[in-house]
């Protein structure tokens, strides 16, 4: 990006990637299933072999949901040798789940995130905070990953992935760095009182003009967003262990502030950059697992 016009840089743009877990071999006898999670911002697909994560792909959602679903699944299947026809069962989930053309069934993302969180972190998880592109959900689950209750904050961009993208652009900080950068302030500022992302566009400029550093502005907004998320968790009833899924699970600025506000530690984030599972694909992993169960049930009858 060096030498390009900084105003044209897309600070909101996050990295698309795909991964294959080594050492897993598949044959046509295996139960191979997939989950496709078409979110408002990101489309994720995961492939499981006998209920074990095998490969996944994360792409940006375009204007067309079916296309985004196809793109995500193709990305997850890339270099695996698998074809869509090798998949025994495909579950569509997420905001665009009814528009997943190859899916055998559509399941709500709440059930899928619950199941996915249980898969990634194990049976001790009781509360899942899923921060998606356009909504925030606090989900209570049991030891099998089944949903007990949930609360959702929708119809407001404050705290969502989309809201964070707007901040990244506004402050001209790459989105993947905003979490760490928000933590570089010496003293945590008071959270901003107005969380409306639309107003932030003018208010943040006012704070910068008053002499606040970018880091301080970002910290004040991140804090306000974390307060909203913590409130949602408290309303659903916090029970340990707590985990965060969705794109914002990668935002240390958000997660660590939620931990401070609630006074509990979240279960540690898998090392998704190296070889760990990615909490952003929790919904797709859960969908693939539910797909396996549905396939096996259908085989029995």
């Amino acid at each position: 990006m060096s030498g390009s016009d900084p105003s044209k840089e897309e600070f909101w743009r996050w990295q698309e990637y795909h991964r294959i877990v080594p050492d897993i071999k598949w044959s046509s006898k295996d139960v191979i299933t997939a989950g496709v999670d078409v979110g408002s911002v990101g489309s994720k697909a995961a492939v499981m072999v006998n209920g074990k994560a095998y490969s996944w792909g994360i792409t940006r959602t375009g204007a067309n949901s079916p296309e985004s679903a196809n793109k995500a699944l193709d990305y997850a299947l890339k270099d695996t040798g698998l074809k869509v026809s090798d998949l025994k069962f495909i579950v569509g989930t997420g905001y665009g789940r009814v528009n997943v053309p190859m899916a055998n069934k559509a399941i709500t993302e709440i059930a899928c995130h619950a199941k996915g969180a249980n898969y990634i972190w194990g049976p001790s998880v009781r509360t899942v905070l899923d921060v998606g592109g356009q909504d925030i959900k606090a989900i209570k689950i049991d030891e099998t990953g089944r949903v007990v209750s949930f609360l959702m904050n929708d119809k407001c961009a404050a705290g969502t992935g989309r809201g964070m993208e707007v901040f990244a652009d506004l402050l001209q900080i790459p989105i993947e760095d905003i979490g760490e950068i928000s933590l570089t302030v010496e003293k945590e500022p008071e959270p901003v009182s107005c969380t409306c992302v639309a107003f932030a566009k003018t208010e943040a400029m006012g704070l910068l003009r008053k002499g606040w550093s970018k880091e301080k502005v970002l910290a004040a907004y991140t804090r306000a967003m974390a307060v909203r998320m913590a409130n949602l968790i408290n309303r659903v009833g916090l029970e340990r262990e707590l985990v965060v899924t969705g794109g914002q699970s990668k935002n240390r600025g958000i997660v660590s502030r939620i931990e401070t506000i609630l006074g509990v530690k979240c279960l540690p984030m898998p090392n998704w950059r190296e070889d760990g599972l990615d909490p952003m694909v929790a919904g797709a992993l859960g969908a693939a697992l539910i797909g396996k169960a549905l396939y096996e049930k259908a085989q029995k009858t």
Partner: protein
Amino acid sequence: MITCGMDLGTQRVKAVILKDGKVVGRAQGFSGFDPTKAAEKAVSDALKEANLTLSDVKHFSATGSAVDMAPYANSTVSMMGADAKAGVFLVPAARTIIDVGAEEARALKCDEKGIMVDFVVNERCAAGAGAFIEAMSRALEVKLEEMGPLSLKAERASPINASCVIFGESDVVSLIHRQESKPEIARAVFDAMADRVSSMIHRLGVNPEVVLVGGVAKDVGFVASLNRKLGLSVVIPEYPDYVGALGAALTAASRAAKEAQ
């Protein structure tokens, strides 16, 4: 007796000069980064219209979100108090007053003397205020003042996420790619705003006459959606954007009269 009311809003500063119960001057300008200066300019323009000077003004009263930055002010009045006072002054039968401004919407209940009885405010969310129309007009690439007339051409509202400016903006972009009708999108914007405002009024109880004031009252698209939603015709006074400033000028007049006694 000559008094002046100033309304320092988030987007515009308005000034009204009142002489013996009659408006003799009014002016407005953008608040910008220096609302004090903007208010001084609006007052001076309004005085010019009235052929008066600063020294003729007996009492200045200020209201609005930037009330702390008002010049000349002898006193201040709450935004709700100013709306109630001026609303009943202009429309004596007014019992519910809705004020939709650039960044805030308010609804209040008042008595026949123009005293506020109860109120509801929608603040800190752009979706219920004028900022929403502005953001959407930018996304639609339509001039702000054309949004209203455009929306009136639609038979139905387009299915957009019209409850948040940020989501609405992204929705509009993808709808434009799909060549959805701009009038229907504009209608969805006004319908969503009308939903928010009418739910505020229902919390107060609908007491006719319902008077709509504030800058957004000048938007025919919003008025049509609100009337449809409420199932009645709201009354819009002439110069609805000056109602806050007028309320301040009226307050100034009664305070000056009290001081004179």
